[in-house]
Structures are given as structure tokens and as C-alpha cells.
């Protein structure tokens, strides 16, 4: 492996669950200044790929490198390596407030140890204040600071997703893994999300590469520098969005030939109208 490689790289990753091959010789790279998209049919292995990077799934074959150095990830050490991830569900801590959720995400920057915390020493207080301020800044940046005290369970879905994003960002990652961040969001929210993602690798403070799994094609096409297409655990195509969009294999396996997702312009298949009568 070349020492010049920057960012995250996967080499020939294979994962099996019993008799089922979830990933099969997957290689891909996430350079530090790019947004890389992973798309593919349901069950293609996208989430599994994330799990491999996070150390939640042990690959049967292949290797990972981060900045050219071999990476044997363990979930709780991830944020210290500069990697953060959101979950395909929302995965917020239901018993913690929004602010606390985000503060948990920033735990890796806390310095005071157990004893100062137990004794309530100023060191620990300073930590707390710092984490709190940092978390609020991030929530503010995502426009949800006013919900800092709320319990996640009572919030609208879109807000919850933003909080989850905030929690991931709170660890100041160099690489962010986003698993279907747009799922369940409305058009406006998706647009805002797209801007945010596109901006991440180019921020002045804490620039951050992105590995994105998403089924919302508009978003993927709009934000990704590179796209990798998985099918049955294999990479069937890779390249910039323009290339992927027109790749027939991708259309066949994933996008579907007939109905375009962006169906605004497509004619309605049958002239349906509201209030049509019914068969019983």
C-alpha cells in the first residue's frame, strides 16, 4: 500500500453472514476532500460496508487503511481516529436531552478524568462548559439550538435527524459516514442537507470527507464527487456522477428502467383523477 494514500481506503473487503455473502472484494477510496457516495439496491451491503469501517463487523477478507496506515477499527475508538457516523435509523439516546446527545458526541475532546469528575473539580466543570458550548455551537449551526433542552422523542423526525447529524459532527471528524441522512426528509430539508454535505470537505475549520449512503438520487447526484455502486456485495460501477447516471448496469440494477424518480416532468401513466368511482 502506498504511503501517499490519503483518507480512507478499503482493499478487497469481504463479509459473510453464515451462507450469505454481504460484501465480496469491495475496494474503494475516500480522499480527504471529497464526498463519496455509495448506492445500490436494498441489501447490497452498503450498511455492512459502514459497519466494517466502524469495526462493528469483522471482515473475512481485505484490509482498511487510513492515511496509508492499516486500520483495525474498534467502534469506541473511532471518534478518536477522526471518524464519525450516523445510523440508518436515528439512534438518539432517548433518555438524554438534545444538548446532552450532542455532548456525548463530543466526549472525545473531554480531558478531565474520573477522579476530577467524582470530586466535581473545576477541571471537570471546565470540560462540561466547553462541551456544552461546543454542542450548542453545532446545534446552532444546524438551526436546532432552540430545541437543546427537548427530549428527542417529542421532536419531529427532521429535527431528530439533524440532532443525530449534530452528534456525529460534535466529535470534529475528518471523515463522516452518513447512512441515509435524507430518509424521511422533505424537499427543503434535503436541499439544506445537500448544501451542508457539499460544504463539509471544504470547511475552513475541520474539513471533513464524507462517505454517503443514500437512496435519494437527486441528493447523491448533487453532492458526490465520486459514486460507487454496489450490487450483491460487489462493486459494479464507480466514477463521477455523470458517468454513473448513464451506466446501464446501474440503471438496470438500481435506478430502474421505467419510472424516473424525478417524476415531475413525466406524464402520469394513466389519467387518474380524484374522486374516481370504484370497484367494490
Amino acid at each position, binding site marked *: 500500500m502506498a504511503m501517499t494514500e490519503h483518507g480512507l481506503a478499503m482493499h478487497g473487503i469481504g463479509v459473510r453472514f453464515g451462507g450469505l455473502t454481504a460484501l465480496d472484494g469491495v475496494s474503494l477510496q475516500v480522499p480527504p476532500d471529497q464526498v463519496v457516495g455509495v448506492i445500490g439496491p436494498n441489501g447490497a451491503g452498503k450498511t455492512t460496508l459502514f459497519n466494517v469501517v466502524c469495526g462493528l463487523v469483522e471482515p473475512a477478507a481485505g484490509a482498511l487503511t487510513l492515511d496509508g496506515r492499516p486500520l483495525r477499527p474498534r467502534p469506541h475508538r473511532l471518534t478518536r481516529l477522526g471518524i464519525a457516523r450516523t445510523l440508518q435509523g436515528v*439512534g438518539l439516546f432517548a433518555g438524554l436531552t438534545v444538548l446532552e446527545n450532542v455532548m456525548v458526541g463530543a466526549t472525545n475532546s473531554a480531558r478531565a478524568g474520573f477522579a476530577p*469528575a467524582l470530586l466535581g473539580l473545576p477541571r471537570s466543570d471546565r470540560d*462540561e462548559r466547553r462541551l456544552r*458550548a461546543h454542542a450548542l455551537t453545532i446545534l446552532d449551526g444546524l438551526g436546532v*439550538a432552540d430545541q437543546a433542552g427537548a427530549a428527542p422523542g417529542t421532536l419531529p423526525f427532521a429535527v431528530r435527524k439533524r440532532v443525530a447529524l449534530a452528534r456525529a459532527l460534535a466529535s470534529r471528524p475528518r471523515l463522516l459516514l452518513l447512512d441515509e441522512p435524507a430518509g424521511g426528509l422533505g424537499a427543503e430539508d434535503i436541499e439544506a442537507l445537500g448544501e451542508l454535505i457539499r460544504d463539509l470537505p471544504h470547511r475552513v475549520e475541520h474539513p471533513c470527507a464524507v462517505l454517503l449512503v443514500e437512496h435519494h438520487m437527486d441528493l447523491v447526484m448533487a453532492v458526490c464527487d465520486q459514486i460507487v455502486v454496489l450490487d450483491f456485495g460487489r462493486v459494479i460501477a464507480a466514477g463521477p456522477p455523470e458517468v454513473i447516471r448513464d451506466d446501464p448496469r446501474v440503471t438496470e440494477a438500481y435506478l430502474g428502467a421505467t419510472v424516473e424518480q424525478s417524476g415531475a416532468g413525466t406524464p402520469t401513466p394513466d389519467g387518474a383523477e380524484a374522486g374516481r368511482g370504484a370497484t367494490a
Partner: protein
Amino acid sequence: MNAPTRVTAPASAAVGSAGRGNRLRRSTLLRHLAVALVAALLLVAASYGLEPFRNFQLATVAAYLCATAGLTVLTGLNGQLSLGHGALMATGAYTVALTQGRFLDSGVTSGWLLVVSLLASVLVTVAVGAVIGLAAARLRGPYLAGLTLAVAVVVPAVAITFDGVFGGEQGLSVPVEPPPLALGPYFPYERWQAWLAGAAMLLTMLLLANLVRSRFGRALRAVRDDEVAARLAGIHVGRTQVLAFVVSAGCAGLGGGLLAVLAQSVSPGAFSLTLSLFLLMAIVIGGLGSLAGAVWGAVLLVALPDLTHSVTELFTLSPSVAQRWEGNLPLAIFGVTLIVVMIAAPGGIHGLLTRAGRLLARRRRP
């Protein structure tokens, strides 16, 4: 809902210019110390106002509170169920008994030795807790319950098998020095017990309150809510769970040690499975997941049996029924109380009170 936005001020802003009140608000330690001080004053005042038996009960509440607060950290905040806390209390109690006995045998006497013994009880229990915690960190739900249940049941077996050390079924007596002479020759022993236990309890609560408000407290709750998300956020789940067990065990050990000091004796029967189950009931009925709930729980542990007994004394039973009703009736009342409270107030007493408080506040506002 919108309260915490108040704290937006960047950390660097107001350090030098902070006034006294501000310092108090900003320092967890000072704030909690202030509360502890007030509580201590109240305790001392109460100990003068109360009769000896009530003082003893107060002391018992304090001892139980150490254990229930510890269990709250483990079960309420970290989500690990323990049916074996009675065994951890026993560990602390026997440690105190053995060290105090050793001190007596070797002829050293000083009131301060008790502090050493209690410290020893915490240390030994922490060690035991760490071992159990290491195993427990791998287990969930009923499996953890099963393991800790076995731990609870093991106490008498250990005491009987190694009866040379632990005195078998009969247990050991705990020699304790009388109150210091400086307090006067007629200082009631029970008041002294209340002070002792109260002081230890306040220290425990102070430390736990600090801990709960720190990032460790947050990590405990995060692990309880979603282990995977917690790991991805950089929390070592296993270590956090062991930590919770260790902290909790230390508190239980201290509580057990205090009970031993109060009773001046230890025996396996006093730390049965029933005790473990009662501790659990206490924290759930008190209000799971908050230290305030632990306080209510500890109070209930002492007060409820007493209350149910008093309730039964309201009835005068004829001798023919007395044989069967006596003893059983308080138990039945106790059981019904548990069920009713749990159904009517699933958040426990603490939950009930906070809800009532919020209602009151809302009513007052318009």
C-alpha cells in the same frame, strides 16, 4: 423545553469577573457542597428533635441510601439490573466486622479506626464489584438478573462454608466505640449513629451527584439508551458498564458497612435475596434513574414496614384470627401498596412529585 439555551455564553467570557454567586453556580463542587451542608444542618437539627428510635431509623435510612443511590447509578442510569446488591452490602458489612474485630484483637482503640474500616469496606466491595461487573458487562436483561441472583444467594453459602472466618449462620459481632467523650457523657448512642451514617451518606451523595452531572454520568445513560450509538460516539461500553458496577458496588459496600456498624453485628440472614429485591423495589418505587428517587426509596425501606405495622395495629384482632393475621396482614398491605404505587405512579414517587410540581407551576403561571 427552552431552558438550557441560557447557557450559550462562550466559555471564555466570564471567568475573571465572576462574582461569588456566579462561582457557586458555575462550580459543581461548591453547589453540591452547599446543598450537602444544608442537608447536614437539617440532619443534625433533626437528630436533636427526634427520639432515639427515630434517630436509629434515620441512621438506617442513611445507610440504605448509600446502597440505593449506588443501585440507582447502576440500574437507573446505566440500565444494568442487579438482584445481587444485598451480597455487595454483605461484603462491606463483613469487611467492617472483620477489620473492627482485628483492631479490637490487636488492642488498638480509636474512634477513627471506624473510618478506616468503612474505607476498607468500600475498597473490598469495589474489588468484588469489579469482578462481577466484568462478567456482567457481557450480559443483558434476564441473564444479568440470573447471574446477580446467584450472587445474592451465595452469601450464606460463603458464610457457612468459611465459618471460621465469617462465623457461619450466626455471623460476627462488630465492636464499635461509643460516641466521643467530647460530646458529653450522656450523648445518646442513637444520635451518634445518625451522625455517623448521615455523614457517610452525605459524602456518598455528594460524590455521586458530581459524577452524575459529569460526562461519566452522561455516558452511563447513553449506554443505557443505545449501546451501538454510544460506542460510535466514542464510549467504551464495557468499561462504562464495569465502572457503573464498581461505583455502585462501592456505595453498596459502604451502606452494608454502615448497617453493620448500626447493628453491631453481621449475619448472612440479614443480607438475603429479600434484601436485594427490596433494594430494587426501593429505587423503582422511589423513582428509577434519579438520586432523589433513591432517597425516597431508602426512606420507604425503613418507613413502609413500620407504617404497615402501625396500620395493622389499628385493627384489634381476636386471638383466634390473630395467629394467622398477625405478621401476614402487614405483608399483604405492603404488597398491595407496591402494586398500587407501581400502577398509579409508574415513575415512582419522584416522578409523581415532579409531575405534581409541574402542574402546580403551570397553574400558578396564568
